[in-house]
């Protein structure tokens, strides 16, 4: 007992002494300095300064802290409801589906998702594991979503769009934050930061949990624990080292209840109730060097891993029966591991007053272990070179050109150029014309799938010809109107996105009558057309705001090239499949009309009342059979009421009550079950209390 006590005393003495020295040191420095002559470090460097929206090359939506708060959302996928044209659906409470064009599966293969520039899009299934995302929601500073291809700026896989989650830096100052949530969700988080002359850091730890759809038919509760560390070491005014570490660990319910027939009320044999686990970790270190000219170079290394484990996955739906021990073999423990290492060098040069050039290169190693699904453990080494120039041709016109050249490590090299021209007709009215291209390398699952695999009922086989990357060309005309005296901005856009060599199912590829195997092939050609518009309006000294979005979309699919089975033994079946399922239903897989309205009103200085209204037309998912009904149209209203308490010395506290789907709009979820029983997004609420010190 005595020993541990003296340990604590020793530690506290060291801590006290360190703080004392720090304080004395700081005071000493400060007294010597003459404010008028003090040489200051360059802080707002070229890479920190965002292009104003009217000069940006791509259509971008920025979700800032105020919007995050007002929306009442507590997870990143939900925040995507604020992005015009983004479909946000849920397979179940743990499995969100996000898409900017046609709704696909839950793997978000066509979008790049980054956290602080680090891709969280993981190799094995080519997807993002949203529920085990290793960051805390409270640490998000803002999210930038590019609503179109953006390979030249955001790297590989920025196909339909990019979601870039930017977390708070370590310079948050001395202090911390604690918050708890109770109700439908149970969350807790604590964050502590310290700043000193050369080193800033922040540690955050938290827990998030909710009941999922909270529905009789789904076992989709979830709990995730997350811990993050971020530190920034800046020994002098020209170098800084930024370190980020994070880990998450969670439990995710799986399983569906039987909904029809004699087994009504029993759990489905092919999808037993069970708990799966998931974890994720990352380490990232970035060295930023500011040259005397003000140009910057940044070298970043990151290592990311994702792990999921499902203890009882049914691999043969016709056989699985938990009551029959002879079928035990058909329930397998399904383990997936993915890992990615990236080394990137990026240089930002302000060449002269009118040219800012960003260029660099990166190399990446992706590795996956998914023995049930993939042949051996594939490793893919890829590299990219990119360059982007912003050329201010005159005071009123800006030309952005760039490209990314990639070797995807699967035998292909591709180039993704882009050009856009922004012209200020008057300082308030700007027009943008752009043409952008990007490629999407096949996901590991599409390329390395094991013929013998029992997953998916053993129905897939290796592609007969090597898969090519998909290609997209996006053409758009946009308008941005800024009216500062009215506190209003208005933007609109018309676009056409053309996708060629689209990877579609290669139906009945073995050519036999029983059509036992499918594969993948680059046989599709798709076109997406749309009109988008956004209005932002502020009042009350910008303490209150309104953001409104509306999007109209259309999509068509045709077969760019015909697979040989199209005319073979199974011609009728294969043709019917493509006509009635893929092509026939494609138009229904985009939201023809969608939009959102977010209103936040400050009341009496310390109250904030906000309301979010989200609507979309019925939409069908592509991956399910024709007998699954489309999702119903959504018209959902969320509300939030918050009170802030300003305490002394800059401390504050806030209590907020959130209610989602206030009017209990009856819209159904993504994927199965809808034909049998409507799984609805039920009204749910919670209260959050937070304290900043």
């Amino acid at each position, binding site marked *: 007992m005595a020993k541990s006590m003296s340990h604590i005393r020793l530690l506290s003495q060291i801590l006290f002494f360190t703080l004392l020295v720090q*304080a004395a040191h*700081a*005071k000493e*420095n*400060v*007294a010597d*300095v*003459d*404010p*008028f*002559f*003090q*040489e*200051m*470090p*360059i*802080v*707002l460097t*070229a890479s*920190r*300064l*965002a*292009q*104003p929206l*009217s*000069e940006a090359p791509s259509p971008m939506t920025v979700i800032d802290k105020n919007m995050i708060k007002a929306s009442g959302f507590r997870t990143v996928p939900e925040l995507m409801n604020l992005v015009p044209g983004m479909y946000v659906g849920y397979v179940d409470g743990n499995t969100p589906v996000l898409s900017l064009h046609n709704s696909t599966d839950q793997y978000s293969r066509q979008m790049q998702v980054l956290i602080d520039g680090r891709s969280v899009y993981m190799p094995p299934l080519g997807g993002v594991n949203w529920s085990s995302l290793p960051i805390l929601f409270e640490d998000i*500073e803002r999210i930038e979503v590019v609503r179109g291809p953006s390979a030249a700026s955001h790297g590989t896989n920025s196909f339909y769009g990019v979601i870039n989650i930017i977390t708070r*830096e370590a*310079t*948050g*100052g*001395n*202090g911390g934050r604690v918050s708890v949530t109770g109700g439908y969700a149970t969350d807790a988080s604590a964050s502590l930061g310290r*700043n*000193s*002359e050369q080193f800033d850091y922040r540690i955050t730890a938290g827990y998030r949990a909710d009941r999922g759809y909270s529905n009789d038919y789904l076992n989709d509760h979830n709990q995730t624990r997350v811990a993050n560390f971020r530190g920034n070491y*800046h020994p002098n*005014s020209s170098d800084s080292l930024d370190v980020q570490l994070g880990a998450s660990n969670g439990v995710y319910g799986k399983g569906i209840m039987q909904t029809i027939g004699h087994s009504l009320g029993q759990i489905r044999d092919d999808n037993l109730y069970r708990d799966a686990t998931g974890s994720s970790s990352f380490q990232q270190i970035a060295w930023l060097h500011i040259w005397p000219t*003000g140009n910057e170079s940044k070298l970043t290394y990151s290592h990311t891993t994702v792990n999921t484990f499902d203890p009882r996955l049914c691999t043969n739906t016709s056989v699985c029966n938990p009551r029959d021990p002879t079928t035990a073999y058909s329930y397998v423990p399904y383990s997936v591991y993915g890992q990615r290492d990236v080394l990137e060098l990026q240089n930002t040069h*302000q060449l002269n*007053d009118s040219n800012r050039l960003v260029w660099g290169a990166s190399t990446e190693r992706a590795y996956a272990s998914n023995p049930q699904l993939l042949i051996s453990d594939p490793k893919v080494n890829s590299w990219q070179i990119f360059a982007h120039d912003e050329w201010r041709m005159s005071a009123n016109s800006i030309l952005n050109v760039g490209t990314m050249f990639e070797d995807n490590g699967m035998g292909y090299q591709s180039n993704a150029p882009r050009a856009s021209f922004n012209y200020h007709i008057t*300082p308030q009215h700007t027009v943008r014309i752009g043409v952008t291209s990007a490629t999407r390398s096949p996901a590991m699952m599409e390329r390395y799938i094991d013929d013998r695999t029992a997953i998916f009922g053993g129905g897939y086989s290796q592609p007969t010809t090597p898969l090519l990357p998909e290609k997209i060309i996006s053409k758009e005309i946009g308008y941005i109107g*800024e009216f*500062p*005296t009215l506190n209003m901005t208005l933007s609109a856009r018309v676009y056409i996105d053309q996708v060629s060599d689209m990877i579609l199912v290669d139906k009945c590829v073995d050519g036999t009558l029983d059509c036992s195997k499918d594969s993948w092939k680059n046989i599709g050609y798709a076109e997406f057309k749309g009109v988008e518009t956004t209005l932002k309006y502020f009042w009350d*000294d910008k*303490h209150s705001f309104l953001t409104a979005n509306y999007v109209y979309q259309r999509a068509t699919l045709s077969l760019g090239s015909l697979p040989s089975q199209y005319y073979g033994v199974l011609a009728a079946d294969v043709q019917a499949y493509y006509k009635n399922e893929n092509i026939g239903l494609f138009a229904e897989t985009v939201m023809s009309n969608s939009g959102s309205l977010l209103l936040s009103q400050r009341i009496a200085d310390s109250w904030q009342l906000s309301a979010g209204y989200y609507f979309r037309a019925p939409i069908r998912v592509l991956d399910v059979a024709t007998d699954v009904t489309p999702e119903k149209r959504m018209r959902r209203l969320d509300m939030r009421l918050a009170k802030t308490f*300003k305490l002394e*010395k*800059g*401390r*504050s506290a806030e209590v907020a009550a959130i209610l989602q789907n206030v009017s209990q709009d009856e819209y159904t979820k993504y994927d199965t079950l809808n034909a049998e029983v409507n799984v609805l997004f039920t009204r749910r609420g919670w209260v959050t209390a937070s304290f*900043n*010190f």
Partner: protein
Amino acid sequence: MPFASQAAPLRVTVLVTEENAVYRTFAESFAVEAARQNTGLKITQASVLTPETDFVVAVGAKSVAVAVNSRIPILAVLVSKAGFEKALNDVAVQRDKKTISAIYIDQPIKRQLSLITAALPEVKKIGVMFSSVSSDLVNLRKAVVGTKFSLIESQLTLGEALHRQLSWLLDESEVLLVTPDAQIYNPTTLRNILIDSYQHNVPMVGISPSYVRAGALGAVFTTPEQFALQAVSIARHFSQDAHLVAPQYPTQFEVMFNAQVARSMNIRLKENSELVNKINAIESNGGG
């Protein structure tokens, strides 16, 4: 102007006790400008004060502290108003006010307000941070009375949560005006302050070109050459009628802006020369 009518030329010592690029530039410009104007002054630069001189141009606070205890008439330059007044109070034997004067390094408050009016015409709420209530702050408060501006004040003491106070201040202000307070604005804190204010979309108005390079939107300041010009004029005046003008603010100034920061914050700036003219116009009209 005719040559000085004194029998012997006025011996002027430019006292520079600290080695510093700005002081050096001032001293050189002073000598060059005095010669160019044929003032007939006999100028020596020294780092130690000797009694064989008629007039001292004390460069910097340290030089002022050294010179103030002598009996020689002094013109203090490159020293803040607060620093100068402190030196006056600290002196062992009180001097006759007519024998000591200064050109302050600070810009007059009205000029800084004119800069804000010229560059950011829509802005009304000015945020300021300070560690203790100084004469600068009192003057600032007085200067905004009767104008469209209102001051949002935040007092901080060392060790307190700068970030939290700053967050609140940035929420309420439309521009952050730097005060010459080294406890608040120094290389360590400027990082956080600039990053925070940029994220809140609040531009900073600094007090020297160094701030503008760091990321402040702009600053109004006087160059060493401009200070030298003004000092020569005062010295020449003194040499002719033995009259030392009262302490004053710099009369000439320049403006500097960070074009990349302005563009990123969607602030449309006019040409520097146009802005200088605008500020001059406001000053000469006695307004701002």
